[in-house]
């Protein structure tokens, strides 16, 4: 697609226009020279740049609202999550490399399926996974806080927050939510993939015991202990079968509950994000729909204003009517009393 930049021509014309304006204004303002000098001194601008005084009369709030900091924080965290996920990916790959079963870290991978010497420890993988989980949780908390707490408040002069300011705020939250939701599903997919590969590899290596065939252990989808899943069966190929079995069952119970908790947590994150995420491909995703909404908003605002004005006017009328009625009743009462008296 061809594009053409006219920036150079534009800057040249702008420069030309400034120069012309400067020269023409200096010609015009000869008798006003003193005034201008005074003005310049007051503004404490020490150079001969002609349009500095123009820049000063731009009374715009140049500070972004407070929630922009939160957005920056979440962006930074998401960057770190990305890095961590790539790193974890590398760790997974190396862990899965077939090697000799001489690695003794509390792997539980058993004979025939151990990691190569010098492969990443399970603790390391677990630590990284936990780290990513924690960062995802933080992001989701920040986004919830952003959406709930940092709603654009009334501006200093008492006017309510404008439609546009609230739109910007909402859209910022939405973008963050979409990105976090994407990251979390990416993470879950990577975990699931890793686990299936691990299971398949260890299943090939351990035909003896199938203690790991319960549903719960199979579904270990998320995070935490990526090593323990379906492998306990392998380590049972020892004499102290019963003891280890009991320990393993206890272990697995703990794991399963931790897992369920993790699943629940991630599901909450996921659900929260979903409320913010825009459904793709629907009418709500169309730009012209949003423009029309904005235009309607302004129109509806006008309608409300008109209605308010009308009510105001009618309010005065109604008050007048009440007063009249009261007056009539009062006069009638006076008449009755006078009659009696």
């Amino acid at each position: 697609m061809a594009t053409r930049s006219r920036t150079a021509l534009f800057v040249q014309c702008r420069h030309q226009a400034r120069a012309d304006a400067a020269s023409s204004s200096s010609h015009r303002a000869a008798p006003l020279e003193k005034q201008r000098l005074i003005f310049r001194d007051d503004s404490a601008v020490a150079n001969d740049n002609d349009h500095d005084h123009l820049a000063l009369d731009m009374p715009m709030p140049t500070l972004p609202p407070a929630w922009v900091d939160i957005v920056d924080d979440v962006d930074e965290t998401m960057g770190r999550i990305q890095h961590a996920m790539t790193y974890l990916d590398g760790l997974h790959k190396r862990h899965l490399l077939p090697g000799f079963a001489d690695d003794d870290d509390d792997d539980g991978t058993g004979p025939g399926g151990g990691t190569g010497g010098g492969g990443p420890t399970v603790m390391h993988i677990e630590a990284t996974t936990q780290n990513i989980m924690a960062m995802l949780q933080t992001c989701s908390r920040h986004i919830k806080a952003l959406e709930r707490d940092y709603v654009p408040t009334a501006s200093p002069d008492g006017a309510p927050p404008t439609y546009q300011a609230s739109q910007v705020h909402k859209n910022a939250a939405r973008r963050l939510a979409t990105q976090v939701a994407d990251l979390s599903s990416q993470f879950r997919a990577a975990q699931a993939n890793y686990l299936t590969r691990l299971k398949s590899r260890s299943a090939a290596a351990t035909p003896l015991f199938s203690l790991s065939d319960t549903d719960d252990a199979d579904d270990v989808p998320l995070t935490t202990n990526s090593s323990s899943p379906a492998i306990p069966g392998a380590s049972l190929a020892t004499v102290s079968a019963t003891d280890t079995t009991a320990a393993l069952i206890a272990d697995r119970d703990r794991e399963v509950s931790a897992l369920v908790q993790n699943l629940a947590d991630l599901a909450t994150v996921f659900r929260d994000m979903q409320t913010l995420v825009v459904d793709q491909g629907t009418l709500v995703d169309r730009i012209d729909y949003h423009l029309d909404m904005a235009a309607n908003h302004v129109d509806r605002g006008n309608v409300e204003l008109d209605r308010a004005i009308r009510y105001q006017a009618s309010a005065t009328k109604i008050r007048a009517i009440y007063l009249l009625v009261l007056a009539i009743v009062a006069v009638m009462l006076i008449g009755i009393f006078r009659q009696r008296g």
Partner: protein
Amino acid sequence: MNVVQAAQGYMAKMVGESAGMKVLLLDPDTTSTVSSVCTQSFLLAKEVYLVDRIGNKNRDKMAHLKCVCFCRPTQESIAHIIDELKAPKYGEYYLYFSNVLKKLQVEKLAEADEHELVREVQECFADYLAINSDLFALDMDLPTWPLYAGTLADWDARALQRTVDGLASACLALKKRPVIRYAASSPHAKRLAHELGYLMQQEKPLFEARTMTPATVLIVDRRSDPVTPLLNQWTYQAMVHEVLGIHHGLVDLSLVDGIRDDLKTVVLAAHDDQFYATNMYANFGDLGVAIKAYLDEYQRRTPNKAALESIADMKKFVDEYPEVRRLAGNVSKHVALTSELSRIVDDERLLDVSEVEQNVACADTSAPALLRSDEALAESVAAKLRDPLVSGESKFKLAVLFALHNPRSPHLASFKQLLADAAVSPMKLDLMDRVVRYATIAGPASTATGTSATTGLAQFGKTVMRGLKGVENVYTQHVPPLHSVLETLVRGKLKESAYPFLEGTGASNGFPEGVRVNDVIVFMCGGTTFEEARFVHQLSASVPGVRVVLGGNTVHNSQSFLKQIYDAFAQRVAS
């Protein structure tokens, strides 16, 4: 050569060039361009948090936002931008224009930029509405864009300028240097070709850049084929447009009985919707089968409430939830569309009417031996005109088609009478003659196609063969004349007498007659149709190495086409 991708590339460039929170300002033209290729989620991902119109003066001052402004370089938009620059609301400005900026306009903008907030001024040539990957239109609908002024041979000046700009921007977006050929029989096409050539001369450095490759730009006229827009269509996209109307990629279903609120307006875009992309050229029967398969897939993936027991199931559900939700929305949209189409087909007896229409449209005029079949044809038309169950619209279209087929037929008077009996207004009856006049482009031969001449004998031979072979599907037997023109062009055999090169291009650019052509951009003055888009798509798919893109002033259905002819005669053309 994908116009949607080109437009999306421009959008990505525009909003991706600066980091930080941004505001996007559009004008009414670019709003439709942008909405058809770009979604809100895309903009959000690029940190565009607010979209508004440049003409809206009630915007807040938000200096921490950067402003990306994408407009057509019209007088109005430039005036709005000048106002904005004089009283800026945002911290920085990046100006993008959808077509060539004149030096004067750049100077005015530079003068207005007192606060020196403009960082970039660029031209991104996305001045067209990208509908499919190989179909674009210029959104020139009535009443804003009348095409004819004075006589049918003259362009309306504003419309001509817009058309030239739009066509040039499409060429630039596709990075193609036009080698222009136009239909000799059409004064409109000739004028447009000359204007385009003139623009190319003026902007030589732009068109002669090293990255531009040559492509044939073929300019044809709707007037040489008035039959195609009037026919009933039976492929998904064309049918929805004919029956319901697709406007800027949106279909209005609000008048349908019992429609859900979120389906009152639906989006039909091939680049977002996988089902639509696969089925938009499918005929109605195949479409029904595809919808059933789609529904089955949806039911298979939606989990049964009872089945969510083990953690595995829960996990799978949570993983697939967004996918399933999107699927649900899409399924309900297509089911609603097809059921509405089906209802209308039944209510208005479209199958029967369409059969007669197709017979009339495909009937051959140049074989006197088949005159008897002409009588049979007239009789079938009359039968439909007398049928009380057929709508007035369909009857009128049928009569018009017959008039185009044989303008001197003695039956026309009786048809007019039948139409008047069916409460068709006399305004419309006049329209019948006018359509015939509209079609008279090259003298007495009413529907001149201008292809390399197939003699009367060859035509007769074709008809006989078709009669013997039978037709695969009587409802889609019509082949638009554009198809044969394109086929001959691609083979390199399009006659120069019928489709001359514009002087200064052509043979000198290495495209002499006889050389096979690879990239073609076809532009139809007066508007194109979805049926022609389908044939273009199939041609690109069937012939390897050939890529064809179709464009038009607008995309017609029968209503908009008749309206255009009516408007041309009623207000502009001197009788």
